[in-house]
């Protein structure tokens, strides 16, 4: 049933109920919901509406994976910290360009990969020889399993650092951030087929680098 308000006014009929229009950013009580309750898209919208505190929540939610991504590229805490800040600042400046075609985390990964690749391309890449990494304990009965894993991890990181740019980015996003091939394709601006091919070659090269070291 549809009744026009003008008809009520003309006939003098008063409705027994009141229609209250609530803005989308307000809950039923009329209060603006706390930004912490918003999802990523809501946070972006709130931020674009002038609520800077919404971006604080974005940082809080995504700082750990962004930092880990940067650390995979530069392998030092200080550089990873600086790059992570740069990623968030660039995200803030370009927030209007986030159209929501991908998730916010994928968009942040895209920015992160660009920032990190620019950094490692802009300066002489820290060429860590695999020989500089502490030798993997050969004895299977070595009591210090933790130490073995640490050594192994360091050797893998050194090998990953020697991969070509695209292969490196693909392997990091797939192995350590568990992005789907489609998400990686979105983040790197390429196709799913190219992502899989890059991943295949990255694993092959990694195997060769680690095999050379093992001899």
């Amino acid at each position, binding site marked *: 049933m549809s009744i026009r308000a003008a008809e009520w006014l003309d006939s003098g009929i008063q409705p027994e109920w009141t229609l209250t229009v609530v803005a989308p950013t307000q809950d039923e009580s009329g209060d603006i919901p706390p930004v912490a309750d918003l999802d990523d898209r809501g946070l972006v919208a709130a931020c674009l509406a002038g609520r800077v505190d919404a971006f604080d929540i974005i940082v809080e939610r995504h700082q750990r994976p962004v930092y880990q991504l940067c650390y995979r590229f530069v392998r030092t805490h200080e550089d990873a910290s600086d790059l992570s800040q740069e990623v968030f600042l660039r995200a803030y400046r370009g927030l209007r360009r986030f159209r929501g075609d991908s998730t916010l985390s994928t968009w942040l990964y895209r920015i992160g990969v660009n920032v990190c690749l620019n950094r490692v391309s802009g300066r002489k890449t820290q060429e860590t020889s695999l020989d500089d990494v502490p030798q993997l304990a050969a004895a299977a009965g070595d009591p210090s399993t933790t130490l073995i894993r640490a050594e192994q991890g360091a050797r893998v990181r050194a090998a990953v650092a020697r991969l070509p740019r695209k292969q490196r980015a693909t392997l990091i996003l797939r192995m350590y951030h568990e992005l789907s091939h489609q998400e990686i394709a979105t983040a790197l601006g390429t196709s799913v087929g190219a992502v899989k091919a890059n991943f295949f070659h990255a*694993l092959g090269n990694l195997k060769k680098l680690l095999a050379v070291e093992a001899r």
Partner: protein
Amino acid sequence: MRHLSPGQLVDLAEHAAPAEHVAHAASCEKCRTQVDALRDVLRLAASDPVPEPSPLFWERFSARVNAAVRQEAAPGAPRRAWAWAWRWAPIATLAVLVLAVGIGTSMWKGLPRTGPASGVPAPVLADTDGELLLQDDASWNLMTALSSDVVFDDEASTDLASVPGLAERALQQLTEPERVELAKILREEMAQPASAGPKGESD
């Protein structure tokens, strides 16, 4: 036999391949070897966690980013769209100055000269600050241009100028009856009493 592509091998290594590719790998030693090698590397690389920073790091990091963000313009502010224009401001200012000087010079050259037509140099006078020159004054230039064509007799007849000796020269040009008449008028004027005052003045 056609072997699996790199993408299909990756799917197999990640256990995401269709059944037909799994069947192929089961019967193809080359593809199976490649898949096994990929899985070995995946296992090896997966055992490399990123060192966890200090627990205090995240709080400090958030505070640092938040402070930096608050020094930025709002992401939706339209001013950002024109921020690039400020980079060109000095060049634009310089271009306007060069243009203004160029136009002003060409207009100055195109103006008709208003100086003396007879070649009489205009007086070069300056005000107290020594900046304002009379030769730049259009009225003065007009007056000097007109007066350059006026002869002495015309100046005297219109009382435009008073030259020393002019009265003596005029007396010499009078005839004898005119001089007698003039002398008579002067004697009458001088004979009048000083207290009488000029005619027409009254209390």
